[in-house]
């Protein structure tokens, strides 16, 4: 009977310790990945925004002339057009998670994936980049931001 008790304790020990040993590296991976995401996603959203606004794209409203996206977005804001789909391809290239929200007061471009998480209520570390909106009667600059989820 006592031998049975010893074996039972050994069995319990194995049941507790083996999963703990198997889970330990997973916990490590989770922590390292969380750290990486925190560093990359929170620090690079402004860099993604700057890169996208600096890159040139054909302006469909102006005989497909190559222009910096910054100017094209400024024009779209000026004429209150929501047509900034050309940015989607660029965003998909640079935002690894494919989960993002590009918006200004008048423009909103969100990811299409259903797997993307909802935005948190309080968003930290998001910087607004101000772009020039020439000839705008109300204000000459407009803030645009990119939230990487």
């Amino acid at each position, binding site marked *: 009977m006592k031998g049975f008790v*010893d074996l039972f304790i050994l069995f319990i020990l194995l049941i507790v*310790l083996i999963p703990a*040993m198997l889970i330990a590296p997973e916990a*490590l991976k989770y922590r390292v990945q969380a750290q990486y995401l925190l560093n990359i996603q929170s620090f690079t959203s402004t860099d993604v925004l700057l*890169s996208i606004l600096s*890159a040139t794209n054909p302006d469909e409203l102006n005989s497909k002339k190559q222009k910096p996206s910054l100017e094209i977005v400024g024009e779209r804001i000026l004429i209150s057009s929501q047509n900034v789909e050309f940015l989607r391809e*660029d965003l998909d290239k640079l935002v690894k998670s494919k989960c993002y929200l590009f918006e200004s007061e008048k423009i909103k471009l969100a990811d299409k994936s259903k797997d993307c998480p909802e935005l948190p209520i309080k968003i930290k570390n998001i910087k607004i980049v101000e772009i020039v909106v020439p000839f705008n009667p109300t204000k000459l600059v407009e803030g645009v931001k990119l939230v990487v989820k």
Partner: protein
Amino acid sequence: MRSKGISQMLVRLVIFWILIGVSFAMLFFYWRSQLESEHVIEENEVLVARKVLYAKVLLSSDMLTYTDENGIHKGVIDKNKIEGLTYEKLFETYSYHPDDISKHGYSHYVGIDVWDKGKKKFEPLKEFPQPPFVSKPNFGVGEVPFTMSFPVAVRYSQDDVKLGKMNVDIIQSGVSRTPIISPMQ
């Protein structure tokens, strides 16, 4: 009858000691894996933070980025500038020196990739591997690659600015890098 009692006692004693031994061995391995984990996390945090800081410096450096009368265009890499740039000049100006963590110093790697519209993928434009940087290993911890990528715009001319990536890696010189947890999926 007496010998049967002794043999039963011996069996119990053996089981008892096996139990103790197995428990200690498992606790020892668990403790060792925890120590390794803590070490990996600390090293990763330091190196990831350094790579981010290093990349931030490069993204605002006039050695790589486009400049005009308005100043430095952060994150806009000037193709003409990087074509004439050598790794000696780059790392002579921007590099981590030996410190408490790495007595032998660090080896740096910087690579610029540019988006190729025809091939629909990023193509390497220029690489700056600092000797004795061996190669770009394609594994890391879980989904975290060793080489970190940062978004950039690459300026060919005023009317041609393409999207790109700046890949940055820093390794401790004299320390072999091994996949500690598992290869990248």
